[in-house]
């Protein structure tokens, strides 16, 4: 504990809190304790300022005009792509496609990469801890094209079962689709190892980095990963934007996703040709103002000492883990070594929704439910869990409020 506290001391969460206006608000007369960043993170002032400033001084549609504002907006939009390239350490900015979110990015891969060639019996390997966004697009391929989903289990502590992964990847596997970090268990998957094993069998890998990219630096080249997905609103950025990283060789071969302006080369009555990537996959007016906000959010993150931030988040998790350890009526789900700062649990005699309601009245925002991970709920034989997820702006005081709220809930619901 001491060592950890020492490391985390190098990140000043109190100072960071001041960047997030919403964190100083009250709910029901109590200070807000926001432990739902896993669902969506709050946005620092610089992000909101940048979006507003841009919208009221440089806004126009992109890629379409030669006039000043259009040029300025296009510059900002393309600069955002380069910021993202830097954030994910991609080889080329052309390997980054802006989407409306993480979900759309995964659908893009299902639709444009897999669907054109998938055959009945072809297999997609995925883990039982995937978010629905990394399940449903593959179910579509099952329903409509006869693909087979091969599920890789997790161990009881929430670790991915690597032997099961090896066993699942076979000659018919067309893709491994795996989360970088579970939004329920907090488990971080060994992506590099997974990619190596899959590539050894000639199988490409998609990582759902919607959670993973928030809590650790990502280097898509070092990972040698084929597809990597992020979403803006969890990265302290705006809603309405996400992105797909894909290796150029894949993008070049992928067919268009949505059709419309910007993604074409030439349109005639009876024939059509398409633009090169990434434009080919960005039909219509893109999330322009959102791209500006996302770039600032990524810059905000990159300007921090991310190792220190990670240490801080781990400290919060360890502290919370230790504190809930005193409650013998509470069962934590997910205890993988090195896991990210997410704490899911069940409490005897207290349904997750009742618990969340009571915590809410204490100002403590947690999530209750299946967390868009019903397959995982089934794996752990629960209908729902409560989840506290920690972000860079959380503190030990937030954990204390959670613990206090849990005791109160127990008092009301069990001893009441």
């Amino acid at each position: 504990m001491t060592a950890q506290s020492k490391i985390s001391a190098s990140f000043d969460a109190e100072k960071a809190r001041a960047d997030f206006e919403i964190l100083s608000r009250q709910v029901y007369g109590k200070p807000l304790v926001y432990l739902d960043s896993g669902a969506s993170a709050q946005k620092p002032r610089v992000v909101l300022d940048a979006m507003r400033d841009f919208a009221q001084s440089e806004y126009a549609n992109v890629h379409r005009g030669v006039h000043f504002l259009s040029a300025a907006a296009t510059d900002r939009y393309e600069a955002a792509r380069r910021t993202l390239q830097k954030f994910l350490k991609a080889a080329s900015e052309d390997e980054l496609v802006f989407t409306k979110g993480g979900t759309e990015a995964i659908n893009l891969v299902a639709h444009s990469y897999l669907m054109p060639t998938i055959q009945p019996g072809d297999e997609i390997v995925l883990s039982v801890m995937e978010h629905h966004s990394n399940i449903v697009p593959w179910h579509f391929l099952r329903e409509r094209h006869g693909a087979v989903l091969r599920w890789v289990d997790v161990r009881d502590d929430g670790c991915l079962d690597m032997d099961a992964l090896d066993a699942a990847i076979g000659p018919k596997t067309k893709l491994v689709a795996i989360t970088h970090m579970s939004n329920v268990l907090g488990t971080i998957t060994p992506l590099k190892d997974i990619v190596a094993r899959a590539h050894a069998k000639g199988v490409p890998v998609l990582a759902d980095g919607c959670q993973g990219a928030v809590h650790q630096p990502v280097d898509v080249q070092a990972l040698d990963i084929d597809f990597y997905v992020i979403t803006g609103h969890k990265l302290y950025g705006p809603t309405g934007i996400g992105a797909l990283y894909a290796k150029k060789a894949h993008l070049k071969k992928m067919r268009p996703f949505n059709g419309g302006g910007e993604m074409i080369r030439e349109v005639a009555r009876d024939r059509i040709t398409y633009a090169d990537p990434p434009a080919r996959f960005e039909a219509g007016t893109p999330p322009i103002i959102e791209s500006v906000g996302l770039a600032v959010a990524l810059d905000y993150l990159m300007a921090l000492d991310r190792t220190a931030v990670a240490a801080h988040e781990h400290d919060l998790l360890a502290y919370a883990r230790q504190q809930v350890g005193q409650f013998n009526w509470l069962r934590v789900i997910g205890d993988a070594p090195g896991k990210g700062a997410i704490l899911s649990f069940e409490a005897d005699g207290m349904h997750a929704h009742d618990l969340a309601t009571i915590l809410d009245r204490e100002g403590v925002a947690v999530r209750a439910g299946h967390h868009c991970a019903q397959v995982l709920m089934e794996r752990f034989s629960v209908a729902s869990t409560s989840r506290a997820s920690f972000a860079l702006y959380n503190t030990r005081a937030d954990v204390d409020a959670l613990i206090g709220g849990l005791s109160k809930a127990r008092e009301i619901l069990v001893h009441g």
Partner: protein
Amino acid sequence: MDSALRELYQEVILDHSRHPRHYGAMDGASHKAEGYNPLCGDRVTVYLLLGPDGRVADIKFEGKGCAISQASASMMVDMLKGRSQAEAEKLMQGFLHLVKGEDASDLSEDDRERLEVMGGISEFPMRVKCATLAWHTYKNAVEEGAT
């Protein structure tokens, strides 16, 4: 302690949720339906035996869920037993109004008194679905659940 919370989790509610009345499956049910709340994964099954006149001759429920949904289901079966379809419909409408904080003066005085303990839910709009799950499931059972 938050008074809205205290009202929501009244002893009566907690008692109903811990010791639900008429809990369990029913052999020989004439109607049956399963309700599901996708938000939380809660599930409830309502079993009905309707008399030839449509009266609720018997009713039971089964399922897992939060205190609110369990208590609501338990009170519902308690109160529906013996009612005609028209009476049941009136009770349901009154209940729906009550938990949404709307005017429930249609209810008989006795019904209103019994249901009053659920009135606190109107302060918790996100939980209204929990309270109404069993009722919607009952309705489904009657309309489409003939076994």
